[in-house]
Structures are given as C-alpha cells and as structure tokens.
C-alpha cells in the first residue's frame, strides 16, 4: 500500500521522459519532411518554400533548443527574402537574422551558422559585417575535426 505513491511518481517520471523523447522524434520527422520537400525537384519552388518553412516552424516549436532547426528555418527565410538572382526583401531578412542569432547562441562555433550570417549580411548589403562573418566561418570550420 505504501508503495503506491512511489509507483505514481515513477510512472509520472516515465511519462515525462517519454514525452520529451516523443517531442524530439516529432521534431526530427518535421525536419526530415522539410528536407525532402527542399530536395524534391518536382515540387514548385513556391510550394517547397512554403511547406518547408511550415515544417521548420513545427520542429522549432517542438524542440526550440536544437540549433540545427533554427539554422534551417533561417536559411529558408533567407532564401525567400533574397532568392538567388532576384530582388532582396530587406524587411523579410529580420526574422532570419533573429533565428540565426538563436542558432549562434546555441552553437557559437558552428561554421554553417556564420556562413549563413555572412550570406544574410551580404544580401542586406552590410559588406563589412558579411566579411567579418565569413572570416569567422572559415576559422570555425578549420577547427572542425577532419571528416
């Protein structure tokens, strides 16, 4: 009889762990869905971008502590704000910059975060900031272990 409260506590703890694991699994599914949309050559670029962006929002909501999700969400927003060879929507760069700030806070030594920041600053025509971020990207990539 006295063991019942212990069982309840253990069961609650197990539920918490399962819920955390499920959140990460869902985030991974959303991430994979976004990636496969981006790689699908048969899907129109507009739909790819919209759906991939929606997938990244879902996975960020489910796992806000994962830098990779923030980075991918930022890259998609950057792609939408500054399509290659197209006009740049400077106002739309702000959410991408916020997401990159979050990714950089989570993983300050990730070269991909700094390379994306360099691309964003270039699109915003902040050439000096772009150059600085590109140098940081090179330096942090050099620090990576050899593949």
């Amino acid at each position: 009889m006295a063991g019942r409260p212990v069982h309840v506590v253990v069961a609650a703890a197990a539920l918490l762990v399962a819920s955390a694991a499920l959140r990460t699994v869902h985030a991974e599914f959303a991430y994979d869905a976004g990636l496969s949309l981006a790689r699908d050559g048969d899907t129109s670029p507009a739909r790819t971008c919209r759906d991939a962006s929606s997938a990244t929002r879902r996975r960020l909501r489910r796992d806000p502590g994962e830098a990779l999700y923030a980075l991918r969400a930022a890259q998609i927003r950057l792609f939408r704000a500054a399509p290659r060879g197209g006009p740049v929507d400077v106002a739309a760069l702000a959410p991408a910059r916020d997401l990159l700030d979050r990714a950089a806070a989570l993983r300050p030594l990730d070269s991909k975060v700094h390379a994306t920041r360099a691309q964003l600053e270039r699109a915003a025509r902040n050439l000096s900031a772009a150059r600085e971020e590109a140098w940081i990207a090179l330096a942090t990539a050099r620090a990576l272990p050899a593949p």
Partner: protein
Amino acid sequence: MDRARDSARAPGSLTTALSVGLAGWREAGDPAALRLALTGARGLQRIDESNRTPVLETAFAQAGPELAADLIEATSGDAGLRAFAADRVRPVRPAAAEALSETFATGGR
C-alpha cells in the same frame, strides 16, 4: 599540412568566403574583401572543388586598372596566397600577374 587543414573546412564556408569576398571587392573596391575571396578560392582548390572558382577569373577579367595594386595589397604577407593569385590571374590579365611576380623578385610587400 595545409591540405589536411583545409579538408576539414566545410566547402560551404569556403564558397561563402569566395562569394562574399568578391561582392565586397566589386562593390566597395576593398582589397581586404579580395583577400577573403582568394582565401576561399585557395581552400576550394585544395579540397578539389575548383569547379566552384571560375567566378574568380571572371572577376579578374572584368576588373579595372587597379587590379594589380589590389592583388598586391590583398596578398600582403602571404607568399602562398600571392603565388595562388598570380596563377589565377595570369590567363586573363597577364600584366597583373607580371606585377605580382615583380613583387616576389624585388622582395616587395
């Protein structure tokens, strides 16, 4: 040694260095940006990704008369980078390559 070091670099960072550097040099005429572009291009060559670097020769071919001076300043203090730049500029702007080679011969910056 350099090759091993650069092989660890993400190609994306090198490509970004090349494109951001070239943009900065073309738009602001900044030799420091040209140094960044050359560093990215050299890294890409070291990891056998030279197919991404023809933009460098195109930029050299389209540059104004300040090209040689910019290259000398951009490669200041790095003989390897200067040799790389001379190799890349020679096919499209031999006079600029000649100016770079003269800085080797005279022990210039």
